[in-house]
């Protein structure tokens, strides 16, 4: 059953030092406020997971929260390179950062495998790609039916996943719409999920039946944080303000 709590409490009671954690959002709905709260609370030794780490992951790395980063595209999409990440990788500042690098296809499949309760994801990928040489978590298996060589990566099972969404209803069911990204899979792959939302409404009875909804029993805590994705955006509610980054 989802609890409605302040963001500071949701972060404090779900995240711990040494945890693996994903603040997911695929350019849209980036849970920036939750990530900033984790910086304020000063966590350490985190394994940060995210397909597209951007400026808020850069800040967490620069503030020394991360021991390891699992990612597939370390660019601030459309805006540029991540300076603090580069400093950590190139110069070991503020400390050495372990990296586990994948392709988008691999991470998307790995989250889906986590949500599906599988130990690994199997897909047609990494053919001729050199990441397979430098990342020991990329392996190849033979299809038992056709003999085709397929890529395999471990399922992602973060201790905690934070996402931002448009709405919750009073029971704690969650609506995500627009570019839905990887958030549903990430929440279902996680041991604990925390959602920040723009607003709480009475119920979702007027919504189209296929709109993406996370049932309240898949979410640990919900915090109401209007504008919680800034400087990213919330489809139909807030606009992107990337030039401020």
């Amino acid at each position: 059953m989802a609890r409605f709590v302040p963001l500071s409490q949701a972060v404090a009671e779900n995240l711990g030092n040494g945890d693996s954690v994903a603040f997911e959002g695929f350019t849209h709905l980036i849970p920036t406020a939750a990530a900033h709260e984790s910086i304020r609370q000063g966590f350490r030794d985190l394994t940060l997971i995210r397909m597209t780490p951007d400026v808020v992951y850069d800040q967490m790395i620069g503030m020394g929260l991360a021991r390891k980063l699992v990612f597939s595209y370390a660019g601030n999409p459309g805006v540029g390179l991540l300076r603090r990440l580069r400093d950590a990788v190139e110069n070991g500042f503020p400390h050495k950062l372990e990296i586990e690098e994948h392709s988008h296809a691999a991470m998307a499949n790995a989250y889906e495998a986590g949500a599906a309760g599988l130990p690994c994801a199997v897909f047609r990928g990494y053919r001729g790609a050199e990441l397979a040489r430098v990342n020991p978590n990329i392996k190849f298996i033979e299809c038992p039916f056709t003999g085709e060589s397929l890529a395999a990566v471990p399922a992602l099972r973060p201790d905690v996943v934070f996402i931002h969404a448009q709405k919750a209803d009073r029971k704690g069911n969650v609506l995500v719409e627009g570019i839905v990204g990887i958030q549903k899979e990430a929440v279902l792959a996680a041991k604990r999920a925390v959602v920040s939302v723009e607003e709480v409404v009475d119920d979702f009875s007027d919504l189209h039946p296929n709109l993406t909804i996370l049932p309240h029993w898949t979410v640990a805590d919900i915090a109401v944080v209007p504008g919680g994705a800034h400087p990213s955006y919330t489809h139909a509610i807030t606009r992107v303000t990337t030039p401020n980054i």
Partner: protein
Amino acid sequence: MMSRPEFTPNEMMTIAASRALKNDDVCFVGIGAPSAACNIARLMHAPDITLIYESGTIGTAPDVLPLSIGDGELCDTALTTVPVPEMFRYWLQGGRITIGFLGAAQIDKYGNINTTVIGDYDCPKTRLPGGGGAPEIATSSQEVYITLAQSKRGMVEKIDFYTSFGHGDGGDHRQKLGIDTKGPTLLITDLAIWKPDPVTKEFTVVSLHPGVTRDQVQETCGWSVKFADGVEETPPPTDLELATLRDLKARTEAAHKGA
């Protein structure tokens, strides 16, 4: 009176790239130069082209160019928007993409692309963003088009990291790895149009943009450039192509300035 319109090398690159796309293509669009070319194609001769961005937007028709692959504009104007795992599994891996359109930080003569590191992977001189969707776009799309502005830093004899596989060491290297898609079939730069040699798969200049010399192509390329027999001249941008591109850029600038 028709005068030959003035245009920049970058405009020529975008327009030449746009002409390569067909109305029935299903195109997986990389951000930056590919995105401009794909949208000019849609606004000119290919109104029904299906443009797909890796954020899950299928059949999108943005009025302005997106800053990133996840702009709301892409979702607002798309036929449908699907989750990211579905994008990569059903649509890309499923073989439904006819053209994967990629940019590159570093490329070699066989169309292998590096967007990961300059220098050694473990101790890089420069850490680049990485592969994102490109490693699988390069191998699961039926064909791959690449576009970048020429420079000796960008077009090198040996890339530092094989982020996305092109033709490997050339010849039948793709088939040897069990990759049954065509790989890079077209390279469009600000100076020329290149196609792979049918046997060696080395990119070869087949068309020079108007006013460009062979020396200019060689001076801005890190490998020894091969030219096809009978190199053609790329038709210059038409007035309509240029106006369409400039309008799109002006709309884009105005929209993002106000963001």
